[in-house]
């Protein structure tokens, strides 16, 4: 117990009623984290305060129900909709695009000094990680400290690229496609609840995620590589559907607190409100603690297009140059935007 104990105790009633200032709320909550007796009292008072709400219950307008349900499913599709459908769509589109390439185009450099064939070999390496986990008979892979090495994805990619350089592009394409089909088959044929099974993502240092989230990452990466090749060919962009943008955005927002922690900001980077406009967008408050209840005003508000956020997530945009608007602390915003770019797959 620290010196602030008495001061916090007398604030607990006001705190339970959300009647403290922003600073006092923070003081109380910091204290509660380390004081079991205040924490028990706060829980008791909080329960009673919430009970007061029953006195003023009033039915909302009937049309609000449809709006709420539509908005919810826009943010996270219901399980009844095939979660693999989006991924399957982009596998098909990427495959068709690859099938149209000439031998010379396969050898052209597309991004980061990689040829198109290298890019597909890289995709094979990242897809493979998920395939291996699904093949483990439904069991979660045991924790292996060697797996938590952040350089692992790059080394796996490099090995796959080296291996495929000795092969024909058609062979590389066939290996990728066969593995992607197997991934889809395994993901779809699993028992009910399997999509909630936790798996490792491409970057093993990120917290394990439900399979449905890992499949969104596969969708995202397959789309971004399709986009890379289309850009190389000078074809117009073929953006993800609104629903797919919403899925990708949700994936990014969900992992941002972990990315911020991995980025190892020297001081807590502060909280930020992220406003993504356009189809698939939304409004989030991201704090390093990973909570989204807006207890205090965010240190910075960042506004940008949802689709531009997807490109940033793929590290296809420069965080300084991507069109966006910042209100509040520019350093907090910059830290967050840099963290977004680390969640891609390369």
């Amino acid at each position, binding site marked *: 117990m620290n010196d602030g104990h008495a001061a916090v105790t007398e604030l607990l009633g006001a705190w339970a009623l959300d*009647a403290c200032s922003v600073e006092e709320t923070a003081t109380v909550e910091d204290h509660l984290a380390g004081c079991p007796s205040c924490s028990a009292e706060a829980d008791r008072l909080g329960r009673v305060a919430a009970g007061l709400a029953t006195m003023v219950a009033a039915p909302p307008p009937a049309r609000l129900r449809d709006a709420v349900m539509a908005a919810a499913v826009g943010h996270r599709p219901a399980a009844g909709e095939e979660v693999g459908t989006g991924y399957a769509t982009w596998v098909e589109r990427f495959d068709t695009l690859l099938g149209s390439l000439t031998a010379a185009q396969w050898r052209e450099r597309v991004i980061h000094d990689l040829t198109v064939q290298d890019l597909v070999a890289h995709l094979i390496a990242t897809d493979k990680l998920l395939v291996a986990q699904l093949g483990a008979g439904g069991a979660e892979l045991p924790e292996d400290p060697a797996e938590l090495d952040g350089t692992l994805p790059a080394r796996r990619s490099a090995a796959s690229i080296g291996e495929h350089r000795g092969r024909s592009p058609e062979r590389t394409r066939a290996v990728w496609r066969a593995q992607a089909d197997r991934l889809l088959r395994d993901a779809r044929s699993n028992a009910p609840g399997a999509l909630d099974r936790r798996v490792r993502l491409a970057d093993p240092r990120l917290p394990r995620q439900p399979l449905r989230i890992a499949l969104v990452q596969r969708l995202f990466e397959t789309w971004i590589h399709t986009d890379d090749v289309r850009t190389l060919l000078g074809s117009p962009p073929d953006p993800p559907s609104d629903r797919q943008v919403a899925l990708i955005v949700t994936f990014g927002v969900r992992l941002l607190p972990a990315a911020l922690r991995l980025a190892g900001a020297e001081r807590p980077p502060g909280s930020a409100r992220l406003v993504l406009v356009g189809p698939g967008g939304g409004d989030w408050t991201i704090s390093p603690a990973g909570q989204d209840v807006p207890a205090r005003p965010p240190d910075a508000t960042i506004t940008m297009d949802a689709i531009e956020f997807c490109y940033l997530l793929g590290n296809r945009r420069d965080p300084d140059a991507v069109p966006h608007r910042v209100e509040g602390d520019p350093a907090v915003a910059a830290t967050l935007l840099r963290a977004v770019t680390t969640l891609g797959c390369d």
Partner: protein
Amino acid sequence: MEKLGSSHPRWDKEVCERLVAGDEAALGELYDELSPLVYGLAVRVTRDWAAAQDITQEVFVRVWRDPQAFDPARGSWRRWLATMTHRRAVDWVRRSAVRHRRTADAAPPIATPDPEETAVAGSVAKSVQAAVDDLPAPQREAIRLAYFDGQTYRQVAETLGIPEGTAKSRLWTGLRGLAARLEAEGIEP
């Protein structure tokens, strides 16, 4: 057929599991059961129909997006949603107070519905209402200003013309009194 209601821990847990599994019908059920609580509270605190609808949508979308943030071991959906709603509503009141200074009598009066008429309320609301009615008037008034009008304890002190320390202690004593009475009655608010 007997239907589990919002006051059953088993219902809380089941709904949570179904939400995690992506069962849209579970969200519909949660909404049907508890949207009057969320919306009613948001309207009462913000006194703004549009803001209350926005808050209601935000709260349910948040639940759908991340149902695992709710831990059935730590309380009911009713408590979780009321807590989230109140924070957001109070936040809205304080932001709009900065934009244009509101005064209590400028806001449209909102009738408090009879708890017996509302779906969610039931016996819990009745017990809470009775416990609140039996509080000493100074404590009841302080809690009303803080919880239902979204005032800080400093504003409560100013409204009632009492020292800040007195406002703090009225809120605290009042809540403790309610807690003791409801616990004695075996009511889980």
